[in-house]
């Protein structure tokens, strides 16, 4: 297996000296995201996110399961992020890489541990039946910053997802299955219900270079390969910082972190607007 190609000294020097002048190789400013394109549908809970050339697909699915005995009143939310050699050339199949652990951990922290999805609302009969929601995130192409793209894709897919409605009369449980939209059949009896989402944490990644004075937001693959440290912030719609992850790398000054968090708050608003626009767009397509 060929290792992930490392950058040459020439490229490294050029990127660093460019950053010193405030120029990034792809022409954007140090505080700019790449172009973001979110496509939802055709089925409920399917989202495709393109962040520059980075491409991520998320799919939400559900099934009825028995809740965990220690949490009898809660549904189950599982996040599954698997890196494949399709997007990661240097990946050794079979063994979870360091990157994979980091991605799944950050997503888990941002979405599951922060209780972005109301899991109590997923319970059907306490201790007996509950919805188990799976979020599968697939990485189709990697041009850096897969964490932000994965987080956007997961949040967009969860917001777009509809589960079948359930009626409980006494001990009888009826699940009203529905025909997936876009088909000619009318949705059976009742409309499928969206998940109740408490808040939407969105990740923003920063990369730091040299001694920490140089930084960029939304690093590309080449920038990621030469960074000396990174910081990931997840901020929700109430402007609360849900996750701050700084796994190793160079130490940072306090004012840098504050500066980054202010910028992250702006970026998160921008991303959220794009997700909203995609949701509105998907709803219109569905009506037709």
């Amino acid at each position, binding site marked *: 297996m060929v290792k992930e190609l490392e950058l040459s000294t020439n490229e490294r020097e050029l990127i660093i000296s460019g950053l010193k*002048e405030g120029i990034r190789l792809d022409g954007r400013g140090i505080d700019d995201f790449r172009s973001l394109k979110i496509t939802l549908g055709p089925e409920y809970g399917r989202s495709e996110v393109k962040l520059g050339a980075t491409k991520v697909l998320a799919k939400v699915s559900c099934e009825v399961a028995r809740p965990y005995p220690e949490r009898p009143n809660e549904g189950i939310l599982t996040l599954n992020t698997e890196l494949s050699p399709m997007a990661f050339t240097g990946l050794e199949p079979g063994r979870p890489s360091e990157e994979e652990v980091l991605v799944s951990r950050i997503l888990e922290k941002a979405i599951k541990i922060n209780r972005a999805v109301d899991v109590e609302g997923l319970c059907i009969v306490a201790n007996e039946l509950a919805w188990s929601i799976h979020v599968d995130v697939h990485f189709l192409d990697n041009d850096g910053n897969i964490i932000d793209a994965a987080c956007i894709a997961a949040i967009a897919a969860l917001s777009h997802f509809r589960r079948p409605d359930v009626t409980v009369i006494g001990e009888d449980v009826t699940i009203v299955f529905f025909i997936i939209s876009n088909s000619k059949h009318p949705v059976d009896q009742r409309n499928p219900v969206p998940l109740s989402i408490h808040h939407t944490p969105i990740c923003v990644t920063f990369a730091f270079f040299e001694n920490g004075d140089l930084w960029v937001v939304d690093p590309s693959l080449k920038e990621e390969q030469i960074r000396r440290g990174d910081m990931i912030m997840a901020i929700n719609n109430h402007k609360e910082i849900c996750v701050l992850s700084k796994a190793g790398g160079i130490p940072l000054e306090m004012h840098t972190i504050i500066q980054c968090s202010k910028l992250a708050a702006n970026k998160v608003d921008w991303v959220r607007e794009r997700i909203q626009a995609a949701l509105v767009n998907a709803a219109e397509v569905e009506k037709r």
Partner: protein
Amino acid sequence: MKPTKSTERTRLKVVLPGDTVSLEVTTPGITLGPGLIQAGEFITCTKAGVLVCSGSTYWIETDQKRYIPETGEHVVGRISGKGGEFYRVDVGSAHQAILPFLAFENATKKNRPNFNIGDLIYARVSLANKDMDPELQCFNPTNNKAEGFGKLEGGMVLKCSLRYCQRLLTQETDICKLLGQKLQFELSIGMNGRVWLSSDTIKHISLVYNALKQAETLNNNECKTLVSKLVV
């Protein structure tokens, strides 16, 4: 490098791996190029792309990115290691290439090149064999002169498909000519899907880099609009 005469090329059709091409194996003088093999009495495709013919030579043009070394091709590589008598060079192929210390102009046992790991070089494939690591050399074997081979200073590397490298080299795409009318830059095109580029300022390098990257999927008219939009 195989010279491709762009005038004579005819694109026949789109083919998929496993397709049988309606050509007679017995056609006099028929030559099969990359992507075509003879299986019994049929000619079968091994790659997805466009079947092209030039005279009685047939081959398939693909957007492949994985490089398979071929003797005589020029490549851009990155020094990835050092052995007793050679450097290891990463050229994007399945195996790393070997660049012996003696494969330079005027090199002797005492007069060795001095490269560091991470340096970029422009070299020629001197040996490509499916059972051995590919070998490189930094001189033209016909006159033993360096002729531009050797270390590349500064600049940036663009990774693209192998076909795009050929198109840049044979000037099938006008992008280099059009960009050249606007600003000065330098290119070293490797047949391994890597193009080294340099210019006077970082801004210009980034401009050329992005223009070349975008032009991969553009035709000549679109290239013209792209370049006219550039602000130098």
